[in-house]
């Protein structure tokens, strides 16, 4: 088990290096000069510019700059922004917000998706099943851009006007966990639909299995057959999907963050791209790649818990 984890982490190193190199090169190729951007319209003292360029290693060749950056990252040093702020401090605050948002979305996805999928699978071929399948089709098709604004208008504004109570705050994160409810649902939308379909398919398959028939024949209660025998065996694809989705949700949160004015990593990255803040852009993407790699590793380890036949040497 321990050796397996170490092997997986070693295998992840080329992916991490490759993706950071790719992003680093992209930011390197962005038009504009970050040091010139610091002064805006004012004229800069060439000596100051020279010192700053030297300080941020901007005069070095590309690979020297990359090496300087990535060796810092492996020591836990993400560098400083051109305004002198520690990138790790900046990112910590922004990541907290996006993690809250993505976790809210993930929990909603798991509850609603598995719930609806279970319901559809048990009512397979009937009207409920068809209705759930049709609604997943709609949920997949309506982009976040649309659900975001429509729900903001209906639940955030109209519901407040009608009832006088602010159930779902529509902007910022200043109302505690409640501010994440609506954006979390919007972010989870498509994933809920996919998870519903996946749960349904997976359960329909296990419900047909011999061991389920045996369990029913032994006279077990329906609840126990479904919960212990069918659902547990149907869980593996669902866990895979949920694990892979954490990275997708965090990386895809930028639209939701923009609609609901949530200052997370998506918005920060967007701003940093335009300010050409290389350390911030590369730092955010590096952390997202790490989330993706670790989430996939955790998923693979969970397999062994869910299915005792799977062992890692």
């Amino acid at each position, binding site marked *: 088990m321990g050796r397996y984890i170490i092997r997986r982490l070693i295998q992840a190193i*080329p*992916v*991490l290096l*490759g*993706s950071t190199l*790719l*992003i680093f090169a*992209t*930011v390197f*190729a*962005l*038009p504009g000069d970050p040091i010139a951007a610091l002064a805006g319209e004012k004229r800069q003292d060439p000596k100051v510019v020279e010192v700053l360029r030297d300080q941020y290693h901007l005069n070095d060749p590309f690979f020297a700059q990359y090496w300087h950056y990535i060796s810092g990252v492996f020591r836990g040093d993400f560098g400083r922004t051109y305004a002198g702020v520690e990138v790790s401090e900046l990112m910590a605050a922004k990541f907290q917000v996006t993690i809250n948002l993505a976790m809210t979305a993930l929990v909603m996805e798991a509850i609603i998706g598995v719930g609806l999928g279970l319901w559809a699978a048990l009512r397979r*071929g009937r009207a409920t099943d068809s209705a759930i399948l049709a609604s997943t*089709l*709609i949920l*997949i*098709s*309506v*982009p*976040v*851009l*649309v659900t975001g*604004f*429509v729900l903001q*208008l209906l639940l955030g*504004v109209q519901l407040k006007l009608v009832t006088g109570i602010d159930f779902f705050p529509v902007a910022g994160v200043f109302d505690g966990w409640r501010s994440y409810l609506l954006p979390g649902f919007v972010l989870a939308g498509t994933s809920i639909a996919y998870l519903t379909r996946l749960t349904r*398919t997976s359960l329909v398959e296990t419900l047909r299995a011999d061991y389920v028939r045996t369990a029913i024949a032994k006279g077990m209660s329906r609840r126990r057959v479904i919960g212990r025998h069918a659902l547990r065996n149907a869980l593996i694809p669902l866990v895979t999907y949920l694990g892979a989705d954490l*990275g*997708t949700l*965090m*990386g*895809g949160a*930028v*639209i939701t963050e*923009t*609609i609901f004015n949530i200052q997370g990593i*998506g918005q920060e*990255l*967007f701003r940093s*791209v*335009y300010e050409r803040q290389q350390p911030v*852009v590369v730092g*955010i*993407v590096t952390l*997202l*790649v790490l989330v*993706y*790699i670790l989430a996939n590793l955790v998923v693979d380890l969970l397999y062994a818990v869910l299915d005792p036949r799977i062992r890692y040497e």
Partner: protein
Amino acid sequence: MSDIRPVGPAHPETEQDAPADAQVTAVGVPEAPPLQERPEQPDAVPVKPKGRRDKPASLWSDAWYDLRRRPLFLGASVLIAVLLVMAIFPQLFTSIDPYDAKTCVLANARQDISAAHWFGTDNQGCDVYARTIYGARNSIVVGVSTTVVTALVGGLLGLIAGFRSGATDTLLSRTTEIFFAIPPILGALLILAMFRTGNVWTVMLALAVLAWPMTFRIMRAAVITAKNQDYVMAARALGAGPWRIMFRHILPNSIAPVIVVATINLGSFIAAEAALSFLGVGIRSPDISWGLMIAEARDRFLEAWEPLLFPAFMLSLTVLAFIMLGDAVRDALDPKLR
């Protein structure tokens, strides 16, 4: 020697190959009538299309037979046909040309729905209905071109990687792993920031760069399955060269999953285009895009919802049409993917 055709490509058009087709189908891509549609005969033999009773059905003719009877497919086709006409001849739907600045009158800004302006007017006093109709073209061009490019690039590289295996395969597969780890929207945002302008082609390029690994992976897996089948060995034994085996035997039998994924992705590319244009890095004004219209309308959303919700509705409808088509094609071509 290579002209002997014991096993033809699984393609309905090559009539003389039909008996061999059935064999290819049986061992190639899994094919069975979807269980859900015919519950009374779970192990049903493939249904033969009418008028071809003497010939066994190939994967493609069977899929086509299946598709024609699906309400999902018919609905999607009608919707897509209308959208294509809208993209090619927008003037059929509206007499106003939104690219002509004279049609926007600032004094008419944010008007409600009326006989003159079916969907009201936006912040600049432009007709929302005309702009929504004209927006179809860019969405569909981005969706279709990105799909074609990713299918070609990913499919070709996947074919090579799966067929050659060894170092080529390792190199290509490791490269795709890197691309998989990068969050797509953020990656596209970065790529688009490199260009000083934004139009359908830059958006297409950014999306294609990040999306080809998915097609690659699917094609590679399908090729590896097909490569070890008996008919490939037979072709090799008969002296067929690597190119012939690759394009005449393996490709036709491993392309179905790629077509399925390409169709399903088309809808997501359209949604991604809208998202990037909304963020201001995709298609830019004065060009018209639904995402851009949503971005322009959002500041006055509470006063005037028409300029935001009508393009949003058309965007959802378009994505829905392509997702429905993708679902139907998947069910017909590969029931196991469900």
